[in-house]
């Protein structure tokens, strides 16, 4: 199993595939019993991608159990149902320790093998897109930050970018770099959370403690900067809510220095472990064509060998000014997805260190009086500033009519926000393209033909956040 690294400067035409020693490139090709994914290494997949067709996901009678909950409920009660005696319909979740929140799965089983399945979602649906239509653009971030609760800053960022493109607002350089620093830290904390839950799901229970321990260091820093550990409402249209506190650089370097050697420990604990590999290699394989057809993005897509990362391929913020590698997998299985996330923590750390080094001086938010509230000190001395502050926080600011879509690479894939403005101070329509929601479609295809025990590994490796799926 290898993780090929592709350097940032390398173009799609000439990927330099080198064996990276970090991901423990020792074992040979895994057996891939599922869905006939080839067990051999794809010899020269130029421009990435495991060779294969997407017929499996295009078929209408594929692995997806296209039945309503009521139908499945009836069938499962009837022992002589039409599916045949050897088949069983079973329900998993919504309250199951390994379903990461309230994901419910309807599974069709034959023995211990999963045949068809269907994710049943919506248990966390609170109509956040409808709520978004009632809140001003200033309040909007408070709402969207609650969607993906493991990486809240990314939704705030996508929302802010969409609003800023409608406002045609320039964000100061420092604000851009602060955003980048915070987002990469958030990617680290999100992937560390994945390490913890993935470990726990597969029986490496001590990993849960370690993952949470490292994540805690980052969350403490977030608390120092934003005031909150989650749901920060820190990135706002026009910049960020507050400047970085004194001594932030030392803090960041300090915990990066702590986490870095601990990632090596993860390698010892998991990456090289025969049991760990046995549980993940060849489990839940998806090739590149299938990923593209299903709209899958993020680590799942990269695991299939497709080298696509919005940070490099459609740069936003200042990602074109930092140096990092886009990691791609070779087999598209759960192990690749794990290894990619583990190494993305290292890449994010590289970006974070560069942010610390290059953090420009200047303002942390745009000085556009229409969007930016006046500084706190001005309110004490100027009546106009007080009125200005009051108007911005009660009425909000008006955004020119139009529609815009902004996307960022969240830890789970492409996270997009589509805003339609009618010229008032609240969005006419605010839609969030949630990567978890779309990635979840791949679940039936990943689990098809595998064992129930593997289903747990697969759900974990898709890493869905149900707050974002259901919105």
């Amino acid at each position, binding site marked *: 199993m290898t993780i090929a690294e592709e350097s940032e400067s390398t173009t799609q035409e000439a990927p330099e595939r080198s064996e990276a020693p970090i991901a423990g490139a020792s074992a040979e090709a895994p057996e891939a019993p599922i869905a006939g994914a080839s067990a051999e290494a794809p010899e020269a997949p130029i421009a990435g991608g495991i060779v294969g067709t997407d017929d499996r996901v295009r078929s209408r009678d594929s692995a997806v159990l296209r039945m309503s909950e009521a139908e499945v409920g009836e069938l499962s009660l009837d022992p002589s149902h039409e599916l045949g005696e050897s088949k069983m319909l079973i329900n998993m979740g919504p309250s199951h320790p390994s379903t990461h929140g309230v994901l419910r799965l309807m599974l069709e089983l034959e023995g211990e093998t999963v045949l068809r399945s269907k994710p049943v979602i919506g248990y966390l649906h609170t109509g956040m897109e409808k709520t978004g239509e009632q809140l001003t653009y200033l309040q909007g971030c408070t709402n969207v930050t609650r969607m993906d609760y493991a990486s809240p800053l990314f939704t705030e960022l996508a929302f802010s970018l969409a609003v800023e493109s409608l406002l*045609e607002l320039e964000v100061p350089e420092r604000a851009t770099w602060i955003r980048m620093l915070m987002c990469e830290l958030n990617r680290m904390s999100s992937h560390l959370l994945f390490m913890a839950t993935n470990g726990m799901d597969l029986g490496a229970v001590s990993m849960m403690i370690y993952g949470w321990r490292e994540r805690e260091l980052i969350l403490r820093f977030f608390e120092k900067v934003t005031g909150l550990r989650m749901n920060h409402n820190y990135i706002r249209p026009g910049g960020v809510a507050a400047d970085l506190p004194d001594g932030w650089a030392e803090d960041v370097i300090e915990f990066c220095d702590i986490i870095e050697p601990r990632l090596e420990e993860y390698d010892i604990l998991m990456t090289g472990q025969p049991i760990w590999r046995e549980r993940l290699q060849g489990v839940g394989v998806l090739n590149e064509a299938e990923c593209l057809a299903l*709209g899958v993005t993020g680590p799942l897509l990269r695991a299939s060998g497709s080298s696509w990362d919005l940070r490099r391929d459609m740069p936003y913020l200042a990602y074109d000014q930092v140096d990092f590698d886009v990691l791609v997998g070779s087999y598209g299985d759960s192990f690749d997805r794990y290894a990619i996330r583990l190494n993305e923590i290292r890449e994010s750390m590289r970006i974070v260190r560069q942010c610390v080094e290059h953090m420009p001086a200047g303002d942390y938010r745009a000085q556009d009086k229409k969007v930016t509230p006046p500084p706190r000190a001005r309110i004490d001395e100027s009546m106009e500033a007080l009125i200005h502050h009051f108007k911005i926080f009660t009425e909000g600011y008006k955004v020119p009519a139009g*529609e*815009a879509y902004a996307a960022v690479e969240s830890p789970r894939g*492409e996270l997009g926000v589509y805003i*339609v403005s009618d*010229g008032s101070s609240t969005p*006419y329509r605010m839609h969030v393209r949630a990567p978890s929601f779309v990635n979840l479609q791949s679940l039936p295809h990943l689990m098809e033909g595998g064992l129930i025990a593997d289903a747990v590994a697969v759900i974990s490796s898709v890493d869905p956040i149900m707050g974002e799926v259901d919105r």
Partner: protein
Amino acid sequence: MSDDVAAEADDSGETASPEVEIEVERLYGAPVTEAFGQRALFPSLDTYLELCAELASQGFGQVVDLCVVDYLQYDRTDLPATVAPERFEVVVNLISHTRRERIRVRLQVADGVEVPSLFDIYPGTEAMEREAFDMFGVVFSDHPDMSRVLMPEEWVGYPLRKDYEIGRIPVQFKGAPSQR
């Protein structure tokens, strides 16, 4: 804000003058607009599938997003002159990895009209179309599983429609003893 709206209205007014033959810019056979550096295509209901198939063959290999907007309470001014506005708009965001560009397809749909499903071209739209149906009641024909996805199966109404009132369902806390 009102200035901006007026400015946009002026732009579209130029092309819509009645004496001249209406000429709009086209791309892949559909009228195209560009705003904030993002392009949008406006097919008709008949050319919608054709256009998406054409885009797929042009390298737009992934539908990243499909959503619906209900324009019941807002007369937008950013449509090309030849496109008649309807109540709903299906918005499809496509991406091309090889060309590194995005394009948006905006389809006008009247209430009660069925839209052909993109499932056969882009299977990934299955969940997105289900969500669009769930929230707006836009039905996609030839979809493999046109059912609700986020709301309960037996739910009545389409929550994200503009005429679906918020707060219409009173919140009840069962089992909470009354103080009075």
